[in-house]
């Protein structure tokens, strides 16, 4: 909410700023849009392998930038500032995608007679690698000022610092994914199968359980924001 004095200050500062010339960048934007549309149509005409990945990636990047959606902030802000709108949005997104992923999985699978590898989605085994990896990732994203998606978006926004993060991310990926991978694979991953929730408790209970847990987390986040004032 604004006030009279802020309005007066805004006016004064806007007068002072008039001397500074700023350039309209939108022509570059529209040009880039035409190029992107051109690439998309070429991909579609050739029925390319990438004809869906490319336009969907563009839309994801656009949405993330436009909304300033940030997974890191969704975890960090409740702890450092007591605000939870982003956390609530992330939980909401998980709820919406849970429902649609469920529909897709039920429609695709021959229920009662399917392999884990046939389930649409990202299904991976659990081990100490998940625990250690998740913790390292959590520390890293807060001190680097952005997660994997946030880093990509900020590179697009022109942040030199996030280009450094990206290079370090790639170096870390190489260290783990090439040079140390056989250690992690042999110790924790080999021979394990992903745990698919509907296989344990059934399809409908899995959906209801997951939505309930996410709903409780959403309500908890709201309550936390009301109580905590930093």
């Amino acid at each position: 909410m604004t006030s009279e004095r802020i309005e007066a200050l805004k006016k004064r500062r806007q007068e002072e700023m008039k001397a500074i010339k700023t350039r309209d960048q939108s022509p570059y934007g529209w040009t880039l849009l035409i190029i992107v549309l051109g690439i998309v149509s070429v991909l579609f005409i050739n029925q390319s392998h990438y004809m869906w990945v490319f336009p969907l990636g563009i839309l994801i990047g656009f949405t993330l930038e436009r909304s300033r959606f940030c997974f890191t902030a969704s975890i960090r802000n409740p702890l450092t500032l007591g605000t939870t709108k982003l956390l609530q949005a992330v939980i909401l997104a998980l709820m919406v995608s849970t429902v649609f992923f469920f529909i897709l999985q039920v429609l695709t699978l021959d229920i009662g007679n399917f392999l884990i590898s046939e389930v649409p989605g990202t299904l991976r085994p659990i081990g100490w690698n998940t625990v250690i990896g998740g913790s390292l990732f959590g520390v890293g994203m807060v001190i680097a000022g952005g997660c994997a998606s946030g880093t990509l978006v900020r590179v697009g926004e022109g942040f030199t610092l996030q280009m450094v993060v990206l290079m370090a991310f790639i170096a870390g990926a190489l260290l783990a994914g090439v040079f140390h991978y056989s250690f992690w694979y042999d110790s924790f991953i080999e021979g394990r199968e992903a745990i698919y929730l509907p296989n344990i408790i059934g399809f409908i209970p899995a959906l209801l359980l997951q939505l309930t847990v996410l709903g409780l987390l959403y309500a908890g986040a709201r309550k936390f924001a009301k109580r905590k004032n930093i």
Partner: protein
Amino acid sequence: MNKIFNKVLKAPWPYWAAAIILSLLNVFLLMFTGAPWRITSGFLYWGMWVLEKFGYNDFAGSYFEIYGGFTAGESFLVNTVSVLNLAVILGALLSVLISSEFKWRRIKNFKQVAFAVFGGLLMGYGANIAFGCNIGAFFSGIPSFSLHGWVFGVFMVFGGVIGSKILMRYMV
């Protein structure tokens, strides 16, 4: 007209709207490409591509050797996740140019770089041993009903708590 432009292409979208759009885009990715949104393996692909250009190609026991997906001697556009990542960068650039908010944002001091490198290394290492980052393991893993998504999420929050303590203590 100008009002609509300001609302859609200038003012930030509400988080909840972005949440719904992002989940639908993720569902479309799963529907049309057979796999949901993921990022990390694309970074590994870029790294291996660079190593190969420098003449290193001993990738025995690596992630891609076990699960497939790295084509030796190919352009870095051969991998789906690599293309997806480039598209996300391009999409963000598109948005920031249309709203006239692009700027080369320079680095302020060495402290920033040190934390950026350290954080980036931790993220890259953690994501590659855990089968994914905040997107692949968390944002796509949980809706896939794979328990690893929840485990990853819990420990990502745990790491986030430690990271926030470091941030408040050393970075402000």
